[in-house]
Structures are given as structure tokens and as C-alpha cells.
């Protein structure tokens, strides 16, 4: 049969069509246990929400892989010499997912919304007295006092920029997110999955993968089995009992990096005997934090004060408490702790590692003749009765998530009513309060170092450690990373071979 021009064209079409069909959409699937409550970054405070909004929205600035603040929607920024004005130059030509152009007006509207009632983070912006956009690319924030942590706040998940027109229209961002981020929301089935597709107009260039599916899988065992069955490319919560199998299987890579968490067994400093610093130190000496980290959290670095290991804010002088049950017993005797003393430990049920850690601490304290009664409660009960409300606990185990600036972790500590621990130390409170309102970086560092050293001495917590952020990825997946300190998912550079 002669190859006529028509037949040739037809054949060519078939080849082209065939190859299009073969180049199937590169889809990346991530399994994680925690799901977002709402995808409106100005109306949530949950890390699980920011883990998704990170892909949908952009912030003016963002932390890079080393945690250093770098430009994002803002090309540059500057503080005035008195620290009372912060100006940004907004990047040109960025578009929201609906095609509208992002200007300084959108940023201004977003900051106003973030600072107003209804925003969980409003207090971080209380010093912002005026927000203005003199032209399309300039944003000026006028402050009532120096705000050394403002940039860090804007670099966090809640600093997302939303379109002004939709803000004014009262758009439901929580259910129908609309930003300028690397991915566009396609489908969200609660309790099941979120499906995003790559944004071809993303200002840094479209992501490598065409589609991202975030699956909410509560059971860690199912996450691991799903990796093995090829259903997931990355799983965030594979249990440490399965890590040996992961390491033995060359189809998978176990990734571990430092997290921003400070894990503590918080002591209720208002309670009898726990209001005595000798007792609090004794409890620190009684617990082998290294073993607790190893067994309950799959490894990590121990800490000696209320700051994550490796933080630039940590004073060099502070070391973790040694494990010394003998010295602990001595201190308890000196403090006159009676034989019959019983501690009530309340543990948050959904967090299995905290429950395991609590039970280990119970055993360690028995060694120094301190009896602990454990009560495991549901998360809402923990938040309502331990963390807030009546603070009905003696000891509890919890992780405090990372913050880009030390103020995020420390503000309020030392004021007895401001924190659940009831830690009462006017000196620490004064240092921390001052560091929150001055601009001088060096002085702030010194103040926080003083405060952290004293928190070590005063031991309002049993300090445990900073666990590793651990996830398992299929060997053919590269470029997935977890934002330092914020623990959000960055999928812009994911490549699948």
C-alpha cells in the first residue's frame, strides 16, 4: 500500500497521540495522618492546615532549607532606622489562580485581615498601626513599637497573601482556597484526600510534578503497607517499629532531619512540691531523657531548656540534665517530699509517642520513690482541662512546635497566668518581654540566652528533647522536603524518576 500524504499524516497523528497518552501525568502521592481543619491561612493555627496551604498560597518572605528568611512574593524589604516602619517591594507579574494580578493592595488587605478579630494570630500583629500600599508594588507597615519577630511571622504559614477582591467579597477561603501558590486546589474530600494540580503560571516556574495527592491515612501501619503496594510515594508517619524493614528495603529511603519540636514533660508549677525548684530539678535528674527519646520518639537530641536542639537562640552554657537518680533522691529528701506523694500525669491520647514517653517517665520516677498515676485523655479534654481551663494536672507530656523567632516559643513564660505550666519568675518574664519589643538583634540574643539559661536552672519542665522529622520516601522520589521549624510540606521541587 503506497504511503500517501494522508496516510502519513494519519500515522503521524497516531504516533503523536500515542506518545501523549504514554506520557501519563506525573502524580505524586503523600500519606499523612493529620488533616487540615480549614484551608484559610488566616483562620487556622494547625500545622496540618499549613502543610496544605503551603502549596496553595505564597508569603512575602519564607524560610529556606536552612531556616534563613529569603524573598518570596517580596523582592526585598527594609526596616526604617528607628524600627517603626517596615517596607516591602512586591514582585511584579505574580498571578492568583483565578488569573488576577497580585499587587501590594492584595498584600495590604491580607495583613489587615490577619491582624483583625477572628484571626488566631492577631496578637502577633497588634503593633501594626497602619498598612498602606502607596503604589502597586510597595507595601508599608507602620508600627507602634519595634517588632523584631514580624518578618518571621509573615514568613510563617499564616502570612499567606489572598486576593483583596475575594477578601472584600467574603469568599469562603476555608473550603475554597484561592492563592498564587505552586499548586491549585482541585478536589478536597475531608477524611480522605486533597488533590492539587501544578500551577503553570507559578512565579518560580511550574512544579515538576503535574499533580499532588495528599491522602489522610490515620493508621501508620497502613501508611507503610501503602508505600510497599506503590499507592504512596512519601509517608509521613511510618511507625518506628517498621523502620528496620524500611532500611532493609532498597526501594525506600528513611529520611531523618532535625525538627523544630521541643518535647517536655510539663510540670504544674502551681502544685505543692512542684512549686519547689529542688523538686523540679530532682525530677529532671530522675529521668533518662536520652532513652525516652530513643524508645518513645525513635531517636532525637536531648535538650536542657525550653528551646529545640540546634536552635541559634540556645546559649552555649546550657547542657541537658544528666541522668542521676542518686542525686535526685538526695534533692527530694532535702525538699522534704513525703513518702506518700503521688503525682497525677495526664497524657494526650491521640499522640502515641507522648503516651509511651509518659509511661517511661512513670517508671523512672518510681525509681526515686515518686508514685505517678497516669490518666490518658482525649485531645479536646487535654486542651480544655490541662492546657487551658483549670490546668488540672501535675505532669503532662507534649511537644511545642517550632517557631522562626524565639518569641514564638517563649512569649508569656515567667508570667504565672500566661502559660499552662504556671511557671512564675518575674526576672525571666522581664527579659522575655523586653526581647519582644526591641529591634537590636544582639541584645535580643543576649536576653533570650539569659532567659533560657535561667529556665534551665528553674526547670519548669522535665526537658526531654527534639525528635527527628522522619518520613519514608520511595527511592525514585527526590526533592521533597519539610520546611525547617514550620514542618510544612514543600513539593515545588519534587522530581519522580
Amino acid at each position, binding site marked *: 500500500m503506497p504511503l500517501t500524504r494522508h496516510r502519513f499524516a494519519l500515522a503521524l497523528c497516531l504516533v503523536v497521540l500515542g506518545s501523549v497518552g504514554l506520557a501519563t501525568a506525573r502524580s505524586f502521592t503523600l500519606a499523612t495522618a493529620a488533616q487540615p481543619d480549614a484551608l484559610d491561612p488566616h483562620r487556622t493555627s494547625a500545622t496540618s492546615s499549613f502543610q496544605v496551604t503551603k502549596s496553595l498560597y505564597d508569603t512575602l518572605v519564607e524560610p529556606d532549607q536552612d531556616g534563613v528568611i529569603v524573598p518570596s512574593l517580596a523582592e526585598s524589604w527594609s526596616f526604617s532606622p528607628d524600627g517603626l516602619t517596615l517596607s516591602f517591594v512586591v514582585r511584579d507579574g505574580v498571578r492568583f489562580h483565578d488569573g488576577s494580578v497580585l499587587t501590594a493592595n492584595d498584600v495590604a488587605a491580607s495583613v489587615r485581615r490577619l491582624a483583625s478579630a477572628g484571626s488566631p*494570630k492577631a496578637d502577633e500583629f497588634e503593633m501594626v498601626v497602619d498598612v498602606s500600599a502607596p503604589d502597586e508594588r510597595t507595601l508599608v507597615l507602620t508600627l507602634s513599637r519595634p517588632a523584631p519577630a514580624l518578618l518571621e511571622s509573615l514568613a510563617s504559614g499564616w502570612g499567606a497573601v489572598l486576593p483583596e477582591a475575594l477578601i472584600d467579597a467574603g469568599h469562603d477561603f476555608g473550603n475554597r482556597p484561592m492563592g498564587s501558590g505552586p499548586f491549585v486546589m482541585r478536589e478536597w474530600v475531608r477524611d480522605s484526600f486533597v488533590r492539587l494540580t501544578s500551577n503553570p503560571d507559578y512565579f518560580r516556574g511550574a512544579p515538576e510534578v503535574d499533580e499532588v495527592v495528599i491522602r489522610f491515612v490515620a*493508621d501508620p501501619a*497502613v501508611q507503610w503497607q501503602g508505600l510497599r503496594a506503590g499507592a504512596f510515594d512519601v509517608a509521613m508517619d511510618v511507625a518506628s517499629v517498621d523502620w528496620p524493614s524500611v532500611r532493609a528495603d532498597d526501594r525506600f529511603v528513611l529520611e531523618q532531619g532535625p525538627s523544630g519540636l521541643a518535647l517536655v514533660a510539663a510540670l504544674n508549677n502551681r502544685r505543692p512540691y512542684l512549686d519547689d525548684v529542688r523538686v523540679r530539678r530532682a525530677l529532671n535528674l530522675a529521668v533518662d531523657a536520652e532513652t525516652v527519646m530513643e524508645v518513645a520518639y525513635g531517636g532525637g537530641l536531648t535538650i536542657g531548656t525550653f528551646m529545640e536542639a540546634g536552635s541559634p537562640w540556645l546559649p552555649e552554657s546550657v547542657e541537658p540534665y544528666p541522668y542521676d537518680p542518686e542525686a535526685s533522691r538526695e534533692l527530694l529528701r532535702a525538699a522534704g517530699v513525703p513518702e506518700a506523694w503521688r503525682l497525677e500525669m495526664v497524657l494526650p491520647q491521640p499522640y502515641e509517642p507522648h503516651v509511651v514517653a509518659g509511661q517511661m517517665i512513670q517508671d523512672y520516677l518510681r525509681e526515686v520513690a515518686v508514685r505517678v498515676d497516669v490518666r490518658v485523655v482525649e485531645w479536646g479534654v487535654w*486542651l480544655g482541662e490541662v492546657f*487551658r*481551663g483549670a490546668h488540672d494536672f501535675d505532669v503532662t507530656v507534649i511537644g511545642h512546635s517550632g517557631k522562626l523567632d524565639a518569641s514564638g516559643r517563649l512569649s508569656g513564660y515567667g508570667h504565672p497566668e500566661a502559660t499552662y505550666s504556671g511557671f512564675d519568675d518575674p526576672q525571666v518574664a522581664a527579659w522575655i518581654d523586653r526581647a519582644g519589643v526591641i529591634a537590636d538583634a544582639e541584645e535580643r540574643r543576649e536576653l533570650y540566652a539569659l532567659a533560657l539559661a535561667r529556665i534551665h536552672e528553674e526547670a519548669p519542665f522535665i526537658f526531654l528533647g527534639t525528635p527527628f522529622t522522619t518520613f519514608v520516601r520511595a527511592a525514585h522520589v527526590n526533592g521533597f522536603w519539610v520546611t525547617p521549624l514550620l514542618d510544612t510540606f514543600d513539593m515545588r521541587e519534587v522530581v519522580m524518576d
Partner: protein
Amino acid sequence: MLRLALTQVLSVLVAVVATLTVVFFAVRALPGDAAVILGGLETQTEQVEALRGELGLDLPLSVQYVRYWADLLRGDLGTSLRERRPVGEMLRERLWVTLSLAGLAFSLALVSGLTVGLLAGRRTGTTGDGVALGLTTVGLTLPEFWLGFLLILLFSVQLGWFPLIGLPVEGDLGVRLWHLILPAVTLAVPRAAQIARLARVRLLEEASADYVRTARSKGVSPRALTRHVAANALPGLLPLLALELGGLLTGTIVVEQVFGLPGLGSTLLGAIAARDYPVVQGVAVLAVLVYVLVNWLADVLQMLADPRLRYE
């Protein structure tokens, strides 16, 4: 007859009002509220208070209760505190998942349970009967979360016959059905075992009745006899079936969790954890309706099957 119907309607109404009232106050009696949970660890007390005001949680309980009934009587189930959208819309999205799961599981349980029960009941004392009894014991004792995980391991991970978890929201009916098979089997196993055991016992009871002895002595064929016995024995299963059907709703909570299905069970669990009161109440309304409907259906079926009830 009319009086009977009226008392029935009245008792149903009382049950519905009582149930919804209990649910209303019970969820609010749990420590912590939606504002505290949305606030988490990272929100200052003033912002939590502001949120509480915005969500209407600072209103007196009595005001909230009156508003609830006023809205409900107008057919308004309220707005989710966590998702900030109408509860009715949320339930509509989820209902079909749970209904298809429960329907599939119930059919599986009914067919397999009755088959095993009738076969075992006809041949009591044989090896087959013993095996059936053993199997049903295992079926009854297996916890659903464990059975579900075993099925996933075998059929999804090892054999790859079924999808791991999840359920496509749209698309081909066959594909969706394929996703529902393992969850439905997980749900059906303990219920099938229950039905099989009861069907067997009912058959045995009925087989020792006087009329059976008489019929047998008159030389009625075993086949015909079984038909008569079954016809008398099976309507006695209807109340159990109604209970099982209602109980499926609680079973779906566990199974939807294990298989990651976006149904009412996961919605309810999430809503309780988040103290999303309107959603918990919305699911309660649905559950009450299902129970009432199923029990009414069982009554009607029983009347149809048993002429004596009709003329009383």
C-alpha cells in the same frame, strides 16, 4: 387500629426529641469546645475567646438549645463550626458512602448468614454443622479494625486485587463498588455470623414444635417440611435484622476509619474530636431517622409474614 398507630407515632416522637436532647447536652458536656480545639497550642487566650464569640459558643446553653430546635424545625441543621459550611450539605456528600457501604455489607451478611444458618440447622450434629459453628464463633470475635487490616494485607498489599484504601467520589460505579468490597466484607463478617447462629437456633426450635412431629408422622417429605419450618422460623429473625441494620451504622465508624472512606462514620468521629456540635447533632438526626425507619419496616414485614399479628 388508629389508636395503636397514634401511640406509635407519639412514642417515636418522644424518642426522637429525647435522643436529640441528650445528644445536644452530652456533646456540650465534653470538656473543651470547638474554639479551644481550633486554637490548639498556638493561640493566645484572647483569640480563643474571640473565636468562641464568633462561633456563638459564649451564648447561654438555653439560648443555644432553643435556637437549635427553631432551626431544626425549619429543616436547618446548622453550620459546621470547623468546616464553616452547612451541615446538610456535608451530610449529603457523605450519606451515599455510608449507605452503599451499609447496604452492601447487609446484603452480604444476610445472604451468607442465612445460607450457613439454614444449612447448619438442617444437619445438626454433623461435621458441617460443627465447622459452621466454629466459623461463626471466629467471625463474631474478630474485631473489625483487625479483620480489616488483615484483609488489606492479604488482598491489597500481597495479592493486589483490591485498592488499598479510599474511595473515588465521582466516576465509574464499578470502580467505586470495587473500593467498597473489602470494607463491606469486614463489616459483614460478624453480622453474618450472628445471623447464621440465630437462624440455626430458630430452625432447631421450630423443628421440635408439635406440628412438625405431626407432619413428620404423617409422612410429609423432608423438603416440604423444611419449607414449612423455615417459613415459621425466619420471621422471628426480623427484629434481629433490624437491630443489625441499625448496628451497621456504628460498625461503619470503625470500618470507614480503617479503609479511609469519607462517610458519615469518619465525619462523626472527626466532629466529636473537634467538638463540632452541629455536625454531631446532624449525624444524630440521621441515625435516629434510620433507626425509626428500620424498626418500622421490620414491624411491617413481620406483620406481613405473620398473619396472626395482623388480626390482633
